[in-house]
């Protein structure tokens, strides 16, 4: 049996690492079959409970999505979309569990300037190390799925850890354990790919000819994958990215970082430049305001 050693971390933010070492035979993955999901939010509930997180009681904005977005405490969120299928004329209520996709090629990790604040384990979990986090928010920008959230209270970034603490003793993540219909499944990536094949087969026999797997190549695949009824239109599912990829800016930054070596001082010097590149000047434009309003009011 292998032991858990530093070796088991295959990538670390703002740190030069060689290519993923050997020992990646145990790649884990979570598979979410949207067609089996009843939108009950058990995953949200289990996530809050397991991770000792609580949210302030919010309000109703005319939708079922509560809280209204991911937060430093809400690491997973059911997003509800009412869609009238133009082909069948039928209403479809598409419900997607949003949260960290645990990318094979993690944009957050690449964007992170704080050494050791984001790591990727050999089993492919991307995890935040809060002691090392400097709260700069680059992970938010680096993430092609808009997942991490920086807390205003402790100025650290938060997101799903894939319940690394549970996995470490052989338990599946809390959301997968709780899921009443087994819409959330967990295992090795190989197993999950095979399971996805089966579930897609079922969907096709049920008439969903475009059913398929969401495991986007733009980030070299993810360790949270979806089975979608309409895999040709991921954006139907509350704006799931059609072709996610890491921002070229992040790739550029990472390139510079590599070139410069990861001496902390050097990295710090670069942060300013990167901040400007990614976030632009600290000003909110009217366009941004409008865009935010549109998003907030869009029927979910």
């Amino acid at each position, binding site marked *: 049996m292998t032991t858990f050693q530093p070796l088991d971390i295959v990538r670390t933010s703002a740190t030069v690492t060689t290519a993923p070492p050997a020992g990646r035979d145990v790649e884990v993955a979570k598979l979410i079959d949207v067609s089996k999901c009843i939108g009950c939010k058990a995953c*949200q*509930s289990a996530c809050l409970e397991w991770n000792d997180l609580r949210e302030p009681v919010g*309000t*109703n904005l*005319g939708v079922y999505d509560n809280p209204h977005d991911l937060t430093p405490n809400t690491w997973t969120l059911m997003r509800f979309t*009412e869609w009238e299928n133009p082909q069948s004329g039928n*209403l479809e209520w598409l419900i997607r569990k949003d949260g960290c996709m645990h990318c094979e090629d993690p944009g957050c990790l690449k964007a992170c300037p704080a050494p050791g604040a984001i790591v990727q384990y050999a089993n492919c979990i991307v995890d935040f190390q809060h002691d090392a986090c400097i709260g700069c928010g680059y992970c938010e920008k680096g993430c092609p799925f808009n997942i991490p959230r920086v807390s205003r209270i402790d100025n650290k970034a938060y997101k799903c850890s894939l319940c690394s603490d549970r996995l470490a003793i052989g338990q599946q993540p809390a959301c997968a354990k709780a899921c*009443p219909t087994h819409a959330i499944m967990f295992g090795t990536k190989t197993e999950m790919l095979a399971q996805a094949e089966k579930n897609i087969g079922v969907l096709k026999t049920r008439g969903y000819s475009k059913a398929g797997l969401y495991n986007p190549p733009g980030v070299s695949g993810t360790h949270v994958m979806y089975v979608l009824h309409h895999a040709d239109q991921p954006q139907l599912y509350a704006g799931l990215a059609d072709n996610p990829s890491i921002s070229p800016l992040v790739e550029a930054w990472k390139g510079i970082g590599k070139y410069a070596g990861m001496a902390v001082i050097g990295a710090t010097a670069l942060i300013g430049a990167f901040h400007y590149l990614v976030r632009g000047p600290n000003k909110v434009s009217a366009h941004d305001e409008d865009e935010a309003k549109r998003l907030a009011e869009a029927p979910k």
Partner: protein
Amino acid sequence: MTNSWTDIKNTDLVLIMGGNAAEAHPCGFKGVIEARNTRGAKLIVVDPRFTRSASVADYYAPIRQGTDIAFLLGVIKYCVENNKVQWEYVKNYTNASCIVKEGYGYQDGLFTGYDESKRDYNRGSWSYEMGEDGFVKVDDTLADPRCVWNLLKAHVAIYTPEMVERITGTPKDKFLYVAKAIAETSAPDKAMTSMYALGWTQHSKGSQNIRCMAMLQLILGNMGLRGGGMNALRGHSNIQGLTDIGLMSNLLPGYMTLPTDGDPDFATYASKRVFKPMRPGQVSFWQNYMKFFVSFQKTMFGAAATKDNNFAFDYLPKIDVPSYDMLRAFEMMHNGQMNGYFCQGFNPIQSAPNKAKIKAALGKLKFLVVMDPLKTETARFWEDHGEFNPSTPADVKTEVFELPTTCFAEDEGSLVNSSRWLQWHWAGATPPNETKSDVWIMAQLWKRLKALYEKEGGAFPDAIKALNWPYKNPDDPQPEEIAREMNGSVVEDVVDPNDPTKKLLEKGKQMAAFAALRDDGSTAAGCWIYTGCFTEAGNMMARRDTSDPDNTGAYSKWAFAWPANRRILYNRASADMAGKPWDPKRKIIEWDGAKWSGYDVPDIAPTAAPDKVMPFIMCEEGVGRLWVRGLMKDGPFPVHYEPFESPIDNPIAPKIRGNPAARVFKGDMEVFGTAKDYPYAAVTYRLTEHFHYWTKHNAVNATLQPEFFVEISEQLAAEKKITSGGWVRVWSMRGSVKAKAVVTKRIKPLICDGKTVHIVGIPIHWGFMGAAKKGFGANNLTPFVGDANIETPEFKAFLVDVEPIASGPVVS
């Protein structure tokens, strides 16, 4: 449930109508997904709203709330006309061939014998033609115009697809799609499961909604089969148990009934309950009634129940009305006829209809005692919570006690789930603060009451003093002791009449099965249908063996299922007249020429020959009833009646308002609104994020659905200029609430009788206590009327109006 949660996976068609299993019972719903994904079963949802159950369905059909009977009778008509009938099943296992007496009839929405002044029927004509042999006359050819089958055909004739659409608003093509899919399960090797809940019960004709589906399941031959059945998804963790144990005004444990003023003596009481078979050779299991009754009396009154005093028959109260159900209790309270009231884990100011009436009624009590692990609104009905519960405490004279109780985590005992499984659980936490168990509280109250009567005397102290109290520590009975008592034990040795040296039953031993209970006082059993749950072999409810041979879903060694550890009721009906399973792949039990055996405990005697003894042993006929004698108050067949508050007149009987046999108290009819003043059809319901009024006390659930809202269609929103997320006021003839509006495509207007009907959906979960935002209970709006047979409030169909408002309630 006739079947079980773990049996749903065996079905070919799941019909969710009158329920919303995905939201209300998510973990039980996994069987639906499993059936769909592993055996290609279809899921059809028929509901006024496109629910989360509908979101994973293969087909969804909208329906106006309160019109299910019209839909289902339409399906029965479709099956009959298209020959989608499991004929061998119908001919042998139902009363299709029984001849109904001349004099019985039906016309324009009413059966013979109706008395409008009493809102009740004289049910004398609702009976069979009896032969000289004392048995019901039958015509096996089904040719006799008075046989049940032909009466049924005539009764459903009016429910054409066009009429179904006119009443229900379900478009004809959608109705026909659903009817066809249901009809296909008439094949002997196909089964449909009906999963229903309050969506069918909470109507003034709730019992007939369910009866209608049961009739359809009989016609399709789906009762008793794996993957079939009538599956009532009970709402609470032990409401099955509380009902089994008879905590209702007119019941004794095990579905026996209290004596009434019409039972002047013990012999009359017995004669009205010991039902003789109405067909030759049939079981008619209630023939054993007195064995269960006397055994109960021995549990209740111990040595004080003797043959000489008719086993303490007079210690039981006699009931003078059909029931003193919750609605009648609040009616009496409202009229000043009730002085004291106890609420044990019950929050009626949230859950009973017409909150204004409930609140006023509570204010007329001398004392109210609330036992609850949570701070309920009921205990605080007198507090001023602004718009949510306006009150002037100085004017409310009621003395209110709030007794803190333990919750499940600190409590040991058994609960009965919908599958009829009695499952034992263990306490894991120390009771916090001064909380005490309900058992302790009840024991203490009895102890004090008894002491007062012993010291001071008073009204009829005999029953209180004689109450059997066989617990080691009388102050604190232990759950295991009470469980043993429910199961029952031998009071006196019973010897074999043929061999006096041989004991059939030995004094002090736990009873093994209810079949051995006796009516001579030698046995005791608190709840006969539970006998077998705690035997000499131990606590069968605590069994945790997960073996399930051939994955039938029976799990026969997990916990204990009543009755007799039977997992599927009427399982005899899963086999044909030769005792062979209709579908070999669905075998439950099988006749081998000498006995029955298989995966489950047969529900007829193991040696009862299949061509002699019919499966429906609780019915005197031995068969399922497509038509029923005078056992239902509102008719031998279901009829479509509109809700008391309806957007349209009843197309099949325009003069009849509501269910003509439903009880309506004076003053309540006057506050039923009409469509002219209250144009929208409202329905109340539960959301998956909450459980009734409990989880609003929980931080996590309060986050997941924080705030009271109502749901309306985009069309109604446009008409009334309501924006999603904005505030609205909704009001009925009885009250008014303010809520956030959720404007959704999931609710669409229906066309009923040529009129556009808008639906307003109202979740029930908010109140003025707990962690969630303060909100209004849906019961501010609901009408105070119940089902004609069992008084379930009509929460699913009533009328409201709605308007946008600028801001929400003032939160203090």
